[in-house]
């Protein structure tokens, strides 16, 4: 009624300027206070890797709670900085080598595993693995596990490389502009390993040694990369078109491309064939109901999600039942069913101290900034 009267007055030109301003400011104040009015429970927010926001990974959650919000990150450090700057997320997807950063920054909360119906089916060794448990508390519910290595086009690289697979391809001028490394400080770590260091030594390198390695190896691998990738689709497209012939990649790239009939091989580099396991961490910055966060984590641990991961991405899953549920052929093609054996077969990415990680972040950032 009030509204109609107002419009009538306005159309008849009876409204004074003062009235108009009063109404306008009332409207403005009203709009400003609107978001703070009571509303339905907050939606769950998840900090996630690109591609992992696919609804098939958390079906049981969506059936109960609807669609969650996602914030996509390039690397765990980006996600951590975002949380530290005040971004409220409920869950985050770190890995065995990075979860310590969240715990040390005091943004991770302990996970009460009794609230996870699928926990009992998680590989026992993963239930107590490093990074899953820290200081006697479960801080990451393990979900996916797999590899990090070089995916390459056997039809486009030299036989020399195929006979002698090595991380050296990212530093070889013969492949300049034909490779794509992940936008990660591993660019420097791998260089140190080519220099003869063990992975562990290289990951813990600091000071002048690190700086020198960044100046030579870091710059080389950045300069030779067509692009430093931040999203797996970039790599998939690049490898498929032949724009790049080799790239740092996870199992899903190889699986996706071979499924499309594109010749792609997954290298076992002599310096190291890397392995990792990742999972969900509960953040204490969340605004959504904790029960919802547990639902989300539980959905990720479900054998159905495992089946999707195995069949869709060629990645391992933490639930023992996933391997029974998944297509036998897909499991056989993947070549591994036991996470522990799998970790032993490769070089597991490790945690380093906050100090070393910070130094690595800085040196890597400077290397990228100073490219010609």
């Amino acid at each position, binding site marked *: 009624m009030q509204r109609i009267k107002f419009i009538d007055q306005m159309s008849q030109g009876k409204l004074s300027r003062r009235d108009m301003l009063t109404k306008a400011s009332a409207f403005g104040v009203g709009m400003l206070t609107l978001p703070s009015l009571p509303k339905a429970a907050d939606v769950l927010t998840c900090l996630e890797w690109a591609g992992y926001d696919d609804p098939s990974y958390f079906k049981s959650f969506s059936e109960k709670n609807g669609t969650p919000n996602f914030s996509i990150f390039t690397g765990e*450090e980006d996600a951590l900085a975002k949380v*530290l700057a005040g971004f409220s997320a409920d869950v985050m997807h770190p890995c065995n080598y990075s979860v310590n950063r969240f715990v040390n920054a005091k943004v991770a909360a302990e996970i009460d595993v009794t609230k996870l119906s699928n926990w009992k089916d998680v590989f026992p060794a993963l239930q107590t693995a490093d990074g899953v448990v820290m200081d006697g508390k479960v801080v990451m519910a393990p979900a996916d596990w797999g590899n990090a290595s070089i995916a390459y086009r056997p039809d486009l690289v030299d036989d020399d490389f195929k006979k002698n697979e090595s991380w050296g391809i990212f530093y070889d001028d013969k492949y300049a502009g034909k490779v794509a490394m992940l936008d990660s400080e591993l660019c420097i770590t791998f260089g140190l390993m080519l220099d003869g260091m063990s992975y562990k030594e290289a990951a813990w390198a600091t000071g002048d040694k690190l700086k020198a390695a960044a100046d030579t190896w870091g710059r080389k691998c950045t300069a030779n990369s067509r692009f430093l990738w931040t999203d797996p689709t970039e790599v998939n497209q690049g490898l498929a078109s032949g724009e790049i012939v080799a790239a740092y990649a996870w199992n899903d790239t190889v699986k996706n491309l071979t499924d499309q009939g594109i010749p792609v091989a997954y290298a076992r580099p002599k310096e190291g064939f890397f392995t990792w396991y990742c999972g969900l961490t509960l953040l204490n910055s969340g605004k959504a109901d904790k029960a919802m966060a547990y639902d989300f984590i539980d959905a990720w641990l479900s054998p159905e999600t495992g089946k999707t991961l195995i069949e869709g991405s060629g990645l391992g899953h933490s639930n023992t039942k996933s391997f029974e549920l998944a297509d036998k052929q897909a499991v056989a093609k993947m070549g591994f069913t036991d996470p522990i054996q799998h970790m032993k077969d490769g070089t597991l990415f490790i945690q380093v101290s906050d100090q070393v990680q910070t130094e690595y972040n800085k040196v890597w950032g400077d290397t990228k900034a*100073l490219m010609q």
Partner: protein
Amino acid sequence: MMRHTEKSAWMAGYTLLTPAFLVMAVMMVAPLLALLALSFWTQNGFEIDRTPTLANYWTIIEPSDEPFFWMGIPFPFKYPPPAVLMLKSIVVSLVATVLVILLAYPMAYFLAFRIKRNKTLWLVLLTIPFWTSYLLRVFSWKIVLGYNGAINSALKSMGLIDQPLEFLLYNPAAVAITLAHAWIAFTVLPIYVSLEKIDPSLLEAATDLGDTKWRRFLRVTLPLSAPGTIGAAMLVFIPTVGDYVTPMLVGGPGGTMIGNLIQELFLRQNNAPLGAAVAIMMMLVIGALVAFFFWAIGFRKLRSRVS
């Protein structure tokens, strides 16, 4: 009585501006002050140390005996990334600005002098690129310039090349091209407005006095449209220096700009105070450059001559 109306007009002016002032205060001034405050703090591990210090600014300008060489240019700094990227960003933005003006000026000229009917329609047509998001426009350039992109496919099908041209994408030139396209509509309008305002009798007078078309353009049209053109150039140059999305998507490893460093400092390196200091320094440098430019061309004189 006179005084009274003058005062109320003055009051009314401010009352009308109040919403704009409020928005500016909340959305611009407050974050800027927060950024300024942040730049005087320091990052200490995961915590921020709130003792005011100039340490971040010193980090940016601290001299070093051994200069860092970038493209043969010596940078005598201990921490050269901000200085190097500042210079690079300014160069990329200048190239983009020149490109934009070269492309936009003829368009505006055409609109102002050649279009007699349906001017509004033409102006609406100009805004069509803005109907999609900026991100999509950058991505579409990735498709145009890409390995299997429009340009490469076309050249290949015409038999001009066997292998796709790789220098099209992932370098500073790609950044400049993309920025130029993204900002062009912003520049056509101010140039158009200043061309539109030109009194046709001045042009007639120039012709009557024996100027050729080209001389008439140089002596009458160009100077009279200068304020709009300069304003348009500023409108492109100032925001593009700090752009970070475009270099991130089409710049490749060598196409990084100062905005990317600021983002990197705020996020991956978790050093927001240093990032804030770099951002403030960037604003100061751009401000100084623009001020110097206006002083150099005598903008005040130029404006008074026009009006």
